[in-house]
């Protein structure tokens, strides 16, 4: 992928604060280890006497388990343990695990190992520990399972029909705390409403109503799931794994295994991508239970097919969007109904879909219905702005159609109707200060938007340009940091946030800025759950915001403690000591941080502190993207030939990593738009369970991605930080769909917009 550093635009002169460290581009602390191959990933973990585990997975999408016979597998020399769901405690409660809502622990446990039924192809049924991976794989093949096949339910709308096969007899639709009387595949019905939707549509000059569908897609992280568990005789369990949140793994293990949380330590290894998919546990409980049984460490890793079949993708969806506008192009009403596949157990990101579908617009009359629906596919997991991409693909395509009908410039339409501070939004109080309009201004002023597009490509290909906006709300939640002053005047900074996108650097930079020392004097480390305070997952675009805030507070606390020690030394009140960067002074006396550190060490003193914060002012992030595409009307192949991502970062702590997040989000969005999908047959068998057939974008599929960082400071953070990691995946499918229409005059309302579909649409339009 070619990349280009582009522009950074503060919203106002007052917003262009001057910093020493923030806004610079230092080398990331983990960079050398990663490029030299020294970084330790989960698969690199080797312990003395370690053995290897393997999972038996369901060949069926939906079946009752009649019996499991493990005797033949257990008889194989080298096989040490075979477990099934009977080896897990039965748990029924719900608990808050990780972000947001409550998790049904029975479902969580039932996803780790199937109980009475298998609910998707790839659902784990049993696990084996053996002295070698090959023996474990052979033993898995010797486990005899008798199934009673059941009809699979693979389509979200079909799953909602009355009389259809139920996945769970005890699942009842819940609507705001009220349970339906009859069981259903619809787990929840969410409603957001404001104003008078009927009056709004009655006042409309133009109404456009369209239906959209999107395919199940995977996060496509490069490093598969892995876990090493060591359960010692004293009951102490230590787990090494690739995760977005060591503490949430600890919580899930505690809940699934009913083991005291104080006896579980989770060590996060380096992580080769997660994008939301590495929040749930899969292998960790299995490795732990087998380790307990045999008294030896157990290592488990997935292969790519297991990742695609057995871990949570983001759901396939159905989204209806209806919007009405008056003659001046003002939105009079907006309505949406959306159904998201949760997979085998409830918990799709439909709530976020409801929250974001009309988020870029100031809508006064609105009604949104969201349905969380179980189907016979893997339990869905988060994927970068989960729910928003599908919802805003639909609404942003309808907006483009409205602009065409009205003959309005799409930037002007968005600005005229654009959401700003004080406007209504679904499931939350009105917007605080946001950068939606500023992103539109920057889009309009961009070189890309101002450069006319050559309409004709080579060999009869046709070109088009489209734009789309996107919103992601971001979250705060709990983060901890601790730190200590070393004898040489540097600071060791311990973080509970796993580092996926360069956050060791962005957090250390905020610490350095707040403390007044150089970035290079801060040594950040991501540590295990015994070594730092509770910290939520690296997700929700929260880490640079919330853990960064913890680091800022830690810097202040360390300064207070240093002043306290100096006050004793100088026999003055602590508040009479001034800190100016790395120099502490009082009435003509001064010491540098290095001198203080040496003094402390000589006297056997240690300056250290720990901070936990739970900030709630995360501030949402808006983005507007421009896509130029070239369409081959003969083959339907779409190439993205130029792309610009404009995004409000609040304040870009490390602009290179912000740009990297923007470009990475765009690449994944291009894959979602054009290539990626789970292909199932009528029996619910995944037909493309490898990266040869499940097509994530490569460098050949992605153009130069230009970035424009807009900086509208978030009032909820001292430096104005907003999360940046998720929103860039939201606009690409709509921007590309709108560009395809601009090129060849057909609307694609089903993702992915593969050559077959584009070709068919072009041919149908030609008659």
């Amino acid at each position, binding site marked *: 992928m070619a990349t280009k550093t582009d522009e950074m635009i503060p919203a106002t002169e007052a917003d262009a604060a001057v910093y020493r460290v923030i806004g610079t581009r230092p080398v990331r602390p983990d960079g050398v280890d990663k490029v030299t191959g020294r970084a330790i990933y989960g698969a690199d973990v080797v312990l003395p006497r370690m053995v290897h585990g393997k999972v038996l997975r369901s060949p069926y999408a939906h079946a009752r388990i009649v019996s499991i016979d493990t005797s033949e597998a257990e008889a194989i020399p080298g096989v040490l343990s075979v477990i099934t769901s009977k080896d897990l405690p039965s748990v029924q409660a*719900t608990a*808050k695990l*990780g*972000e*947001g*809502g*409550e998790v049904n622990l029975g479902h969580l446990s039932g996803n780790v190992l199937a109980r009475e039924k298998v609910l998707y192809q790839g659902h784990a049924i049993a696990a084996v520990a053996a002295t070698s991976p090959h023996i474990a794989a052979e033993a898995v093949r010797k486990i005899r399972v008798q199934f009673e096949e059941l009809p699979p339910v693979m389509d979200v709308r079909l799953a909602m029909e009355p009389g259809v096969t139920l996945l769970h007899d005890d699942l009842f639709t819940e*609507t*705001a*705390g*009220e349970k339906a009387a009859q069981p259903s595949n619809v787990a929840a*019905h*969410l*409603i*957001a*409403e*404001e104003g008078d939707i009927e009056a709004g549509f009655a006042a409309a000059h133009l109404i456009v109503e369209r239906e959209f569908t999107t395919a199940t897609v995977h996060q496509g992280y490069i490093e598969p799931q892995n876990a090493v568990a060591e359960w010692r005789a004293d009951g102490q369990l230590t787990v090494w794994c690739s995760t977005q949140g060591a503490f949430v793994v600890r919580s899930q293990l505690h809940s699934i295994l009913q083991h005291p949380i104080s006896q579980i330590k989770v060590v996060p290894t380096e992580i080769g991508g997660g*994008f*939301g998919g590495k*929040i749930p546990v899969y292998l960790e409980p299995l490795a732990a239970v087998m380790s307990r049984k045999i008294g030896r460490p157990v290592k488990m890793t997935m292969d790519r097919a297991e990742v695609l079949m057995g871990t949570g993708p983001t759901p396939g969806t159905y989204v209806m969007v209806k919007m009405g506008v008056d003659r001046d192009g003002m939105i009079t009403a907006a309505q949406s109904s959306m159904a998201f596949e949760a997979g085998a157990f409830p918990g799709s*990101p439909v*709530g*976020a879909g*409801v*929250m974001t579908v009309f988020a870029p617009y100031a809508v006064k009359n609105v*009604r949104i219905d969201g349905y969380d629906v179980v189907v016979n596919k893997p339990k869905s997991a*988060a*994927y*970068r*702005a*989960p729910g928003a991409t599908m919802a805003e693909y639909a609404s942003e395509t309808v907006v483009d159609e409205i602009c065409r009908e009205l003959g309005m410039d799409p930037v002007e339409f968005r600005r005229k109707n654009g959401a700003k501070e004080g406007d209504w939004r679904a*499931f*939350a*109080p*009105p917007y*605080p200060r946001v950068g939606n309009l500023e992103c539109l201004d920057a889009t309009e002023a961009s070189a890309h938007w101002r450069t006319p597009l050559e309409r004709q490509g080579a060999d009869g290909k046709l070109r088009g340009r489209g734009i789309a906006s996107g919103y*992601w*709300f*971001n*979250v*705060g939640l709990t983060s901890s940091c601790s730190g200590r002053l070393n004898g040489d005047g540097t600071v060791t900074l311990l973080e509970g946030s796993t580092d996926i996108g360069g956050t060791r650097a962005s957090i250390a930079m905020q610490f350095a800025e707040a403390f007044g020392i150089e970035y290079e004097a801060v040594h950040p480390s991501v540590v295990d759950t015994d070594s730092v305070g509770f910290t939520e997952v690296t*997700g*929700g*675009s*929260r880490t640079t915001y919330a853990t960064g805030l913890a680091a800022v507070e830690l810097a202040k606390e360390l300064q207070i403690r240093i002043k306290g020690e100096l006050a004793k030394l100088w026999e003055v009140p602590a508040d009479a000591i001034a800190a100016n960067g790395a120099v502490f002074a009082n009435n003509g006396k001064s010491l540098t941080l290095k001198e203080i550190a040496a003094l402390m060490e000589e006297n056997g003193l240690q300056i250290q502190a720990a901070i936990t914060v*739970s900030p*709630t*002012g995360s501030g949402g992030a808006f983005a507007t993207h421009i896509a130029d595409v070239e369409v081959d009307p003969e083959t339907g192949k779409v190439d993205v030939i130029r792309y610009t991502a404009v995004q409000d970062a609040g304040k870009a702590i490390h602009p290179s990593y912000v740009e990297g997040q923007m470009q990475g989000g765009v690449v994944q969005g291009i894959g979602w738009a054009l290539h990626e999908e789970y292909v199932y047959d009528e029996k619910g068998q995944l037909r493309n369970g490898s990266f040869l057939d499940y097509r994530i974008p490569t460098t050949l599929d992605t153009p130069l991605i230009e970035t424009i960082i807009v900086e509208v400071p978030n009032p909820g953070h001292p430096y104005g930080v907003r999360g940046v990691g*998720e929103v860039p995946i939201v606009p690409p499918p709509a921007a590309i769909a709108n560009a395809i229409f601009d090129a060849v005059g057909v609307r694609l309302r089903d993702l992915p917009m593969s050559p077959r579909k584009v070709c068919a649409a072009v041919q149908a339009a030609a008659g």
Partner: protein
Amino acid sequence: MAKVNIPAAMRSLTGGESCVEVAGATVGEVVAALDERYPGLAARLTQEGPAGIKLRGGLTVFVDGEMPLGGLKARVGPESEVYFSPAIAGG
């Protein structure tokens, strides 16, 4: 009096009212006041937990634009705006 935004799916209990004013110094007191005026709302907003009544799982409360710690014990001012909404996760 605090201004409380009623979730759309619960407005059948408030006769369609989307925003109501009730007295209460904590979120729990606001819920009790709501229930007194609109019987049944407390059962939809709260549930039994191991340590007593708590905010229903999957719900979030905002007070003056912030998500306060403390659930039902969170402080509410006389002019506060209170929103109950589904808890939404990120990725």
